[in-house]
C-alpha cells in the first residue's frame, strides 16, 4: 500500500510527471487532435472520463486477479475494459450531444489506442495505489493530458498565422513546440521532496 498523499499524487500526475510531456503517453492524439483549442479540450475531457472509469475497473481487476493468482491476464483484461468503456462513452455522447459527437469524429474510437489510458491502469497497479489514490491519480493524469493538449493547441493556433517554412510545417513543428513545453514542465520536478 503506497503512502503518498493525495495532493502529491495529483500534482505529480498532472505537472511533475505529466503524462504527455514527461512520459510520452498519448502522443498520437496529442499530435492529431491538437489543431484547435476547443476540440483539444473536449478530447481531454473524454479521455479524463475514460481514465477515471478504467482506473476504478483496473483496481477491481487487479484485486480479482491477485486473489485468483492469474497476473498474466491483467493486460488483456485492462484493454478489454478500456475498449468497452470507450464504446459506452461513444454511445453516450452520441445520444446526449450530437454536435460534440460529430466534432470528435474518428478520434473517439481512437481513444482506445490512447496509451495514456492503459498507462494509468498499469502505473497505478505497479505503484500499489489504493482505490482513492488510483482515482486521484487518474484524475491528475487526465487533467495533465488536457492541459498539455490545451497548451499545444493554443500554440498551434497562433502558429497558423505565422510564416513557418514548408519543411517544418505539420508534425515537425509540433514536436519542436512539444519539446520546449516539455523543458518548461521539467521545472516542476522536485516540487515535492
Amino acid at each position, binding site marked *: 500500500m503506497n503512502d503518498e498523499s493525495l495532493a502529491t499524487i495529483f500534482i505529480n500526475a498532472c505537472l511533475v510527471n505529466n503524462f504527455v510531456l514527461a512520459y510520452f503517453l498519448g502522443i498520437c492524439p496529442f499530435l492529431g487532435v491538437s489543431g484547435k483549442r476547443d476540440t483539444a479540450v473536449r478530447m481531454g475531457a473524454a479521455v479524463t472520463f475514460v481514465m477515471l472509469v478504467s482506473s476504478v475497473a483496473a483496481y477491481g481487476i487487479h484485486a480479482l486477479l491477485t486473489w485468483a493468482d492469474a497476473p498474466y491476464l491483467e493486460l488483456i483484461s485492462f484493454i478489454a475494459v478500456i475498449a468497452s468503456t470507450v464504446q459506452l462513452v461513444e454511445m453516450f455522447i452520441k445520444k446526449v450531444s450530437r454536435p460534440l459527437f460529430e466534432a470528435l469524429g474518428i478520434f473517439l474510437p481512437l481513444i482506445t489506442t490512447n496509451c495514456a489510458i492503459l498507462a494509468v491502469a498499469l502505473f497505478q497497479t505497479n505503484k500499489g495505489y489504493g482505490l482513492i489514490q488510483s482515482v486521484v491519480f487518474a484524475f491528475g493524469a487526465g487533467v495533465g493530458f488536457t492541459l498539455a493538449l490545451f497548451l499545444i493547441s493554443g500554440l498551434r493556433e497562433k502558429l497558423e498565422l505565422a510564416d513557418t517554412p514548408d519543411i517544418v510545417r505539420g508534425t515537425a513543428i509540433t514536436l*519542436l513546440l512539444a519539446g520546449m513545453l516539455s523543458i518548461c514542465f521539467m521545472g516542476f520536478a522536485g516540487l515535492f521532496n
Partner: protein
Amino acid sequence: MAVGLQTEVPGAADDFLAGVWKRNPVFVQVLGMCPVLAVTNTAMNALAMGLATAFVLVMSSTVVSTIRKIVPHQVRIVTFILIIATFVTIVDYLIQAISLGLHRALGAFISLIVVNCLILGRAEAFASQNRIGRSILDAAGMGVGFTLALLCLGGVRELLGAGSLFGVPLLGSSFEPWTVMMLPPGGFFSLAAWLLLFSGLKQRRERKLAGEAVT
C-alpha cells in the same frame, strides 16, 4: 490509413521494403509514437523495444491473416486486440526471462505495445485482407522499419546525451554530455530533427523532378 496503391502486383521484396523505407511507420506514417519517444534514451533500449514490437507485429499479423476468413466483420477489432494483447503478454514474460535489467529499463512500455496503433493498423489494413505470406512480409518490413527508426533516435540521443553507443563510450572523457537529449525534451527534438531531415530530402527530390519535368 490507406494502403498505397501500386500499378503492378507487388512482389515479396516490395511488401517487405515498403515497411522499411517508403512507408516507414515512424518517419512516414507517424504511428506508434509513444514508445518511439519514451524508450529511445539509449540505443540498447531502442533496439530491444523495436525487436519486441516487431515480434508482436509479425506474430499477430500471422494469426490475424490465418483466421481472417472466419472472423465476422463486427468483432474484428475486438478479436485483433485480444490477439495482440496475448502476444504482448507473451513478449513481456519472455523479456523478463531473458534479462531482468532490460525489463526494468523498458518498464511499462512493453505492455504499452498493445496500444501501439501501428500493430492494430497493420492488422486491420493489411493482414486481415491478405494471405499469410504477404502479411508476414508486410509485418516484418514494418517491424524492421520501426526498429531502424527507433535506433536512429536512440543512437542520436545516447550519443549526444551520454557520449556512448550501446554503452560503449565513444566520444572520450572530455565530451560534455548534452544531458537534455536523454530526457523527454530530447526525444521530441530528435524526432523533429529526423523528420525535418527526411522532409527536406523529399522536398529537394520533388523540386529536382519538377525541374526535370519542365525542361
